[in-house]
């Protein structure tokens, strides 16, 4: 089948990232409290100043899952969750905090796994303000049903997921790691 629609959806960048899985340690995530971006060399633990948080997200329609862990340093830590246990949007660290470490583990389709890999490359080492801007732009693009042209300057490789927005059933796949990232940012 000559299949341009499939090639639009599964851009080479996506297929490559689905295989390389950047930021996913080969042996899975280390014990909680360490991030595992640099296996065995993680300056984590009490007193290191790194605030480590984690989020586990499952796509219930297909069982895809991502566990994502970040280590944030500097800035002001996020506030406590708002009433009802739902974190307020202001509860994430201040924009000058830096995502110093980033690691994930997961099992799922090429879209969700590639998305986690691209997310890692996009936000690892960035400050929270930059990461938040990319996250918001990515989400807006994916919800657009193909009507928004990707902003490659903001998104970088993440722009390759523009084709996914035309497949409503797959938007969740692409969003899964980003939702985990947002939850990790907002976690205590």
């Amino acid at each position, binding site marked *: 089948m000559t*299949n341009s629609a499939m090639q639009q959806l599964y851009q080479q960048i996506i297929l490559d990232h689905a295989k390389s899985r950047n930021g996913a340690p080969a042996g899975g995530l280390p014990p909680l409290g360490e991030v595992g971006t640099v296996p065995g060399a993680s300056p984590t633990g009490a007193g290191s100043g790194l605030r480590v948080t984690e989020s586990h997200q499952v796509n219930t329609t297909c069982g895809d899952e991502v566990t994502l862990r970040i280590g944030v340093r500097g800035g002001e830590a996020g506030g406590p969750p708002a009433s009802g246990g739902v974190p307020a949007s202001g509860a994430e660290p201040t924009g000058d905090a830096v995502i110093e470490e980033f690691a994930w583990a997961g099992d799922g389709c090429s879209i969700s796994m590639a998305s986690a890999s691209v997310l890692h490359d996009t936000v690892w080492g960035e400050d929270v303000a930059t990461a938040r801007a990319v996250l918001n732009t990515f989400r807006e693009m994916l919800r657009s049903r193909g009507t928004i042209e990707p902003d490659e300057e903001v998104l970088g490789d993440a722009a390759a997921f523009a084709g996914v927005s035309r497949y409503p059933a797959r938007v969740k796949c692409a969003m899964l790691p980003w939702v985990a990232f947002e939850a990790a940012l907002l976690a205590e």
Partner: protein
Amino acid sequence: MTSSVSPSTRANARPLTDEEVDRIRNDFPILDQLVNGHPLNYLDSGATSQNPLSVMEAEQEFYEQRNAAVHRGAHTLAFGATETFEAARATVAAFIGAQADEVVWTSNATEGINLVAYSFSNASLGLGGPAAKRFALGAGDEIVVTEMEHHANLIPWQQLALRTGATLRFIPVRDDGTLDLAAAAGIIGARTRLLAVTHASNVVGTINPVAELVALARAVGALVLLDACQSVPHLPVDVAALDVDFAVFSGHKMLGPTGIGVLYGKAELLADMPPFLTGGSMITTVDMHTAEFLAPPQRFEAGTQRISQAIALAAAVDYLTETGMDRIMAREAELGQRLVEGLAEIPGVRLLGPPAGVERIGLASFDLAGVHAHDVGQYLDEAGIAVRVGHHCAQPLHRRLGVTASTRASTYLYTTTDEVDRFLATLAEVAPFFGVKS
């Protein structure tokens, strides 16, 4: 259709021919459409089947001419509606070798299983009086399921065990997707009160040896509930000949509408069971503190019933009966073998369940090395091919077989051999597209 599934009926049945299938397809307007520029190739009947015109017409005719609440009202329409509704019950009962009063309408098979579980739960609380004591469960009692159950035939029993203190045990599945009967003989014992087992697996396609399992249960005085969701639509099933105590199935998997399912229960058991859902239409006399309940099946049919759906399901049963369940079974057995033989030719495909040559219903689930099921499904959908991807509501079975998700192609009486072949040809393109080397 009074014989249960036996080797003789299998051998004797003449499969539907390709010409007959082509004629059958004329009765299913939904099949005649393009999806993503390709003729729809619907291989997801295991999830839900399509409706023939006669089923949709039965529902429309009811609403155009006879719509009224059943079992109440003293007007002509209400009488007519009640008569049609009860005739539908008799039709469905005859289809599975049951008496009409042994057929309880439910919303779906899931509700049927929950009905039994909650009735037992209520009996465990002392409801239903001395007669219901036989259904009461407590610490030391065991409920036995299998490792291949759909979540619908697992979670209600997990919950019942949690509510009553009973223990849930399971019969393991072997590598080839069949039940370990030797283990079953050790698990089903004096403490076993209920065995809940699927007739045909919605994932691996195996047809379980119901007679052997029932014999094990009978030897210890345990009740048997059969999940017949994947058997009643596809094979001749006679619940009396199988000697199961309960059976459940869903209308939408057998050419009927959604929102209607059946719980079969032996009359003498239903008679002693306390109700699950309560309210109107299931009582005789009511005061402010107590109520007396109707005899089955009405005892288990609280509130306004799924009238048009029941009538449409009876039309679906008529369609299946006219076509011939034995011939449908023989046809799907051929398609099932064609599927697994074709899958065996495709590099990287690992079939879940028994290999070619072993009996199976007309479906096949598989893993494609290096490509996630969701991506397989996406590629096939682009070619107009509808399959199921994911865990098919059977996570424990997938875990047992060492995969988190699989792709399933499932056939029905309207599936052509050409559709199976086109599916196989397209599937062969998937691994190369994703850059997976075999």
